């Protein structure tokens, strides 16, 4: 018996605007993410990697193709509660993804209520413990938090519904490297504890190499290549573009 993949994207097209100004952001993209896997989408800005995440999450309605989450086919931009209990997203900029006038408590309790989960007080404390913040952070406002702490709150919000698939949109690119390490560790731990599946978008090959087992490279809205992380490490990429990316990100890493 073969399990259906956690997320299956087949022949996905995403566009913005109407002709003649239509811009095709994603063209004929197909990927499959197995349950429990950590899949990386790599590309430069404008390659359409974040657009795929947003289309899956239902934040963009102009798409065509076939989307399946945990065996259920998805249509249009409407998503039901079942979907939100399965899929959640962490955004790139923790300064933009938290409502400036809602405290941590307000953010998490609203989420729990919307998901129809009771026992809010205890759950909030546990979520905060889970993401390594602790209870003293519960009543703070975003402006009283550092970037890393904000991202932890955003992760707690995504975890509140106990999803199975997390969409991670450059979750550390706005953070300092030492904080990035903490957040990446947290994400690894959470994946192990909760058996989560990750679909992670990033421009940083080192991050994707650290976090993911399978990687797809995107350029100008198309998938250029899909490869295992070991091949990426060995530099055994097939496509010229991927090799160029590896060279570019490695050139100053080599050091003097």
């Amino acid at each position, binding site marked *: 018996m073969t399990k259906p993949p956690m997320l299956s994207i087949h022949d996905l097209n995403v566009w913005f605007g109407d002709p003649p100004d239509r811009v095709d952001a994603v063209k004929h993209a197909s990927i499959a993410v197995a349950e429990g896997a950590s899949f990386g989408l790599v590309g430069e800005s404008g390659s359409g990697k974040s657009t795929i995440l947003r289309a899956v999450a239902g*934040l963009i309605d102009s798409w065509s193709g076939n989307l399946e989450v945990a065996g259920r086919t998805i249509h249009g931009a409407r*998503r039901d509660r079942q979907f939100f209990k399965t899929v*959640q997203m962490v955004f790139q900029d923790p300064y*933009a*993804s938290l*409502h400036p006038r*809602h405290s941590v408590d307000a953010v998490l309790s609203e989420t729990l209520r919307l998901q129809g989960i009771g026992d809010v007080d205890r759950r909030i404390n546990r979520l905060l413990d889970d993401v390594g913040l602790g209870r003293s952070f519960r009543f703070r406002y975003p*402006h*009283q938090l550092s970037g890393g702490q904000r991202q932890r709150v955003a992760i707690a919000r995504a975890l509140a519904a106990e999803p199975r698939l997390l969409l991670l949109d450059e979750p550390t690119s706005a953070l300092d490297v030492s904080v990035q390490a903490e957040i990446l560790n947290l994400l690894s731990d959470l994946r192990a504890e909760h058996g989560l599946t990750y679909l992670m978008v990033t421009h940083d090959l080192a991050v994707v190499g650290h976090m993911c087992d399978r990687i797809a490279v995107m350029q100008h809205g198309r998938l250029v290549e899909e490869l295992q992380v070991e091949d990426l490490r060995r530099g055994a990429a097939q496509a010229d573009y991927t090799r160029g990316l590896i060279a570019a990100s490695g050139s100053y890493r080599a050091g003097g």
Partner: protein
Amino acid sequence: MTNTMTRREWLLSDAPQTRRQARLGAFYQGWLTFRANKLAMLGLIILILLLGMAAFAPLLAPKSPFAQDLASRLQPPSAEHWLGTDALGRDILSRLIHGSRITLFIVGTVALIAPVIGLFIGTVAGFAGGWVDQVLMRITDIFLAFPKLILALAFVAALGPSIGNAVLALALTAWPPYARLARAETLTIRNADFIAAARLQGAGRARLLFRHIWPLCVSSLIVRVALDMAGIILSAAGLGFLGLGAQPPMPEWGAMISDGRTYILDFWWVAAMPGLAIFTVSMAFNLLGDGLRDVLDPKGGAK
């Protein structure tokens, strides 16, 4: 002394322990910012005095605002009549004090109605987009196309002159700028990540609008209302001046100026005293609005 210090620390704590402490702390931060603005404090004090004056008008006023004394008409300011008397021998100070109630009534009602209409129309238009946006904004444009006072005049002419109708007319003509402002704010907020995140929790449109977008629009609206207040007082006074607002013998400040107009060269105080009152209150609202901007403007309020 130590007690107040610890209370201050409790309020300014970066790690509040309860919901109440967090809320009070945020409020206290705003108060500190506001207090640092001396002129805004002056505005606030003037407005508190105005409120007190309105509340205790019968106790404060030395005479009845309606008592006529034709023997002592058009008296200059004196010990008997601090601000002089008008053409019917009524004490101007008493009329001003009682008139503060009318001013507050006008200002208060307009400030409640106009921004709420504007906020609702603006945020719905901005958030819904598409044809809803088009229809609502064209209606707004139609209202904006007429000069405010002329439109208000037309309303009052149709409804009949009275203070209530004047207020209604002012409110109906004052909302379009708020709608524009609210729509502009909504358009910038609508695509923010935190709205997308709330949507991913399954938040419906109404919840997004009222719980997420409104709180961010309200603060800039409050600032705008406080700054517009002076204009509203002046418009109300203008309607009163034209005889379309408060009806005699009500001591409305604009109508009082109108009464004094005939004697302005020989008996200047009849028009000047209510004019000064209007000026003071308008200025107070303006100063208050400036201070509120420091507190509520999201751009400045981050730190």
